[in-house]
């Protein structure tokens, strides 16, 4: 039978229904009343036992680092021994009630006091007091609501005691099903912290469900299915399996990327907007390795103002939340045409005015960009990267300009790291020199490959040459990485090569410790790094660098990674 309620916490699970005793009619019928003094003493003794039990459970939770649960249990222990409770119970006994009813009525009386308060949070605590009253009564009556063994359980009731939920061993609780509609109860808080599905407001019909009944609880659609048939069970298991895979995929997308022998590789993201930066970091990127600024200049008639740029950079830096945010200065030219820079038309080819060359050609625009970067550095770890560098003079000139602007910019850091993109054969050949003037290198393998092989990025020529698996490109990368290592600066890779599982071992073996890739590739890249050892990668790399052509390297990598 299927019962509908309201999903409070998502997920699906199967288990046996556990109904903690709601009332004690059977036990009360058998109860033998003693003198008022004896009845009062029973209350005192039961309170002491329960408070001790709760305090012990609280200590256990606290030492396990579960502070929230411990606090709740401590508050319950205090409620159990509260004067308001014991005084009221004593009064009730004097009026002729038996001890268990006297405490439950005392609890009700105090619960009503809280229900009169104009604060939903305090009103929710009324059910905690009722729980405590019942728990004391349970001790007096010696009730043991036995929990089904060997199976996970779905705790069910009008209100379920958080103390009972908290006392369940880890993994025992499959779900929480409530007849009533409250959602802020402590039982729900504890169940939520255990990540189990919760369904509330199941209604009066569900009260008939007996303890020990097999059921499927679905917190996603807010239903409870008792005595499910084979098809329903199978469907539930499939959903559970899918949810488990999703959780595991989520875990795979986060956390440090370490090779099997412990080499840390930092995984950053390539983005073109602050919105993308935010999504990337939320998706597990350890910073922004390449923020492409040219998109801020494209699709508009004029140039963006310094303020507009600063706002975008600031947003990107904030999105990176403390991680580095590498912003590449405008890389116009080639296939990226900027409408506002029409005067460069004809000259802005792949081998003409591109990247840093355009920036020097339009110094006002470049200065505005540098000022915007400096201003935004107040809000994050902003680093500047220069594209299309071919000479030491370019880096020195850019650094001078950055220093000059830093003196005029009032807010932001006085000095920010200045890096060089290694994407021309010239930059590779003088990488030892450039390393003296740069704070970091980032290898743009897309352009580097096309310039080294003198072949357009896409096309049959590039295909036949084998792209970045060509030994010339591999040697260029190793040479750059070596120059960076000698100078003590970091060297990352931000082209497509960085997201190719076949190429990643080669890069890591060359000493590249940072890969910057599109956010969508992060899980795969992380998995690729985690699947190799640095030692193994070095052997692969040494063999690859000694090979004659790209086809041989590719076959070698394919073989090695398939085994």
């Amino acid at each position: 039978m299927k019962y509908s309620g309201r999903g409070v916490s998502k997920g699906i699970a199967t288990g046996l229904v556990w109904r903690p005793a709601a009332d004690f009619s059977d036990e009360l019928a058998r109860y033998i009343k003693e003198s008022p003094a004896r009845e009062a003493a029973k209350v005192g003794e039961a309170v002491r036992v329960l408070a001790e039990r709760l305090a012990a459970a609280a200590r256990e939770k606290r030492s396990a680092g579960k502070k929230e649960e411990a606090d709740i249990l401590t508050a319950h222990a205090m409620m159990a021994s509260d004067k308001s409770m014991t005084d009221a119970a004593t009064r009730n006994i004097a009026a002729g009630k038996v001890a268990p009813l006297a405490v439950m009525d005392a609890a009700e009386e105090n619960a009503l006091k809280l229900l009169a308060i104009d604060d939903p949070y305090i009103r929710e605590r009324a059910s905690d007091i009722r729980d405590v009253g019942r728990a004391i009564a349970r001790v007096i009556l010696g009730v043991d609501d036995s929990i089904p063994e060997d199976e996970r359980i779905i705790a069910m009731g009008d209100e379920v005691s958080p103390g009972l939920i908290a006392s369940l061993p880890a993994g025992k609780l499959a779900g929480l099903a409530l007849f009533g509609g409250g959602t802020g109860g402590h039982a729900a808080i504890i169940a939520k912290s255990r990540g189990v599905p919760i369904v509330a407001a199941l209604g009066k019909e569900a009260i008939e469900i007996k303890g020990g009944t097999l059921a499927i609880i679905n917190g996603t659609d807010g239903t409870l299915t008792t005595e499910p048939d084979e098809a329903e069970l199978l469907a539930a298991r499939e959903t559970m399996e899918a949810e488990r895979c999703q959780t595991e995929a989520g875990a795979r997308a986060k956390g440090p990327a370490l090779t099997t022998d412990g080499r840390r590789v930092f995984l950053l993201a390539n983005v073109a907007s602050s919105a993308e930066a935010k999504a990337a970091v939320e998706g597990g990127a350890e910073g922004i390795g390449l923020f492409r600024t040219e998109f801020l200049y494209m699709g508009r008639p004029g140039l963006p103002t310094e303020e507009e740029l600063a706002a975008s950079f600031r947003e990107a830096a904030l999105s990176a939340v403390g991680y580095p945010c590498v912003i590449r200065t405008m890389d116009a030219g080639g296939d990226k045409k900027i409408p506002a820079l029409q005067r460069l038309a004809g000259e802005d080819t792949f081998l003409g005015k591109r990247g840093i060359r355009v920036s020097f050609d339009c110094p006002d625009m470049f200065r505005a960009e540098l000022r915007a970067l400096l201003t935004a550095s107040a809000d994050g770890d902003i680093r500047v990267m220069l594209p299309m560098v071919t000479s030491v003079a370019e880096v020195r000139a850019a650094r001078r300009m950055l220093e000059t602007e830093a003196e005029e910019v009032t807010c932001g850091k006085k000095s920010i790291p200045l890096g060089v993109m290694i994407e021309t054969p010239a930059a590779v050949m003088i990488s030892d020199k450039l390393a003296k003037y740069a704070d970091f290198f980032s290898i743009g393998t897309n352009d580097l490959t096309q310039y080294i092989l003198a072949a357009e990025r896409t096309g049959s020529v590039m295909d036949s040459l084998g792209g970045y698996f060509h030994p010339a490109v591999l040697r260029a990368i190793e040479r750059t990485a070596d120059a960076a290592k000698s100078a003590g600066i970091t060297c990352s890779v931000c082209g497509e090569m960085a997201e190719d599982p076949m190429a990643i071992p080669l890069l890591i073996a060359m000493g590249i410790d940072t890969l910057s890739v599109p956010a969508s590739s992060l899980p795969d890249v992380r998995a690729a790094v985690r699947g190799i050892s640095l030692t193994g990668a070095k052997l692969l790399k040494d063999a690859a660098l000694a090979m004659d052509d790209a086809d041989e390297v590719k076959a070698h990598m394919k073989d090695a990674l398939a085994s």
Partner: protein
Amino acid sequence: MKPRLCERMIFMRKSTLMMKDGLHARPAALVCRAASGFSSRVVVSIGDDEADASSIISMMALGAGAGSTVTVTADGDDEEEAVAAITKILDGDDTA
């Protein structure tokens, strides 16, 4: 009308403060534990409503929401320390 608890205290310490947060279960538990550690009788009140500080239920039943002004009164050998300690907790200082 029954006399107010604090009016029966002849020598006492008193302190008034504005609550930053509501007096919910957790702060009430902290107050209750601290108050139980003093021999002085400690009373927390809002206007005419009073609560025994060593009773977590009474403290919550005060319904002291964020921004309400509460008065802490204590009478006994360690009244000064008691008022200081309870005031500190009500002021939102968890380290007390």
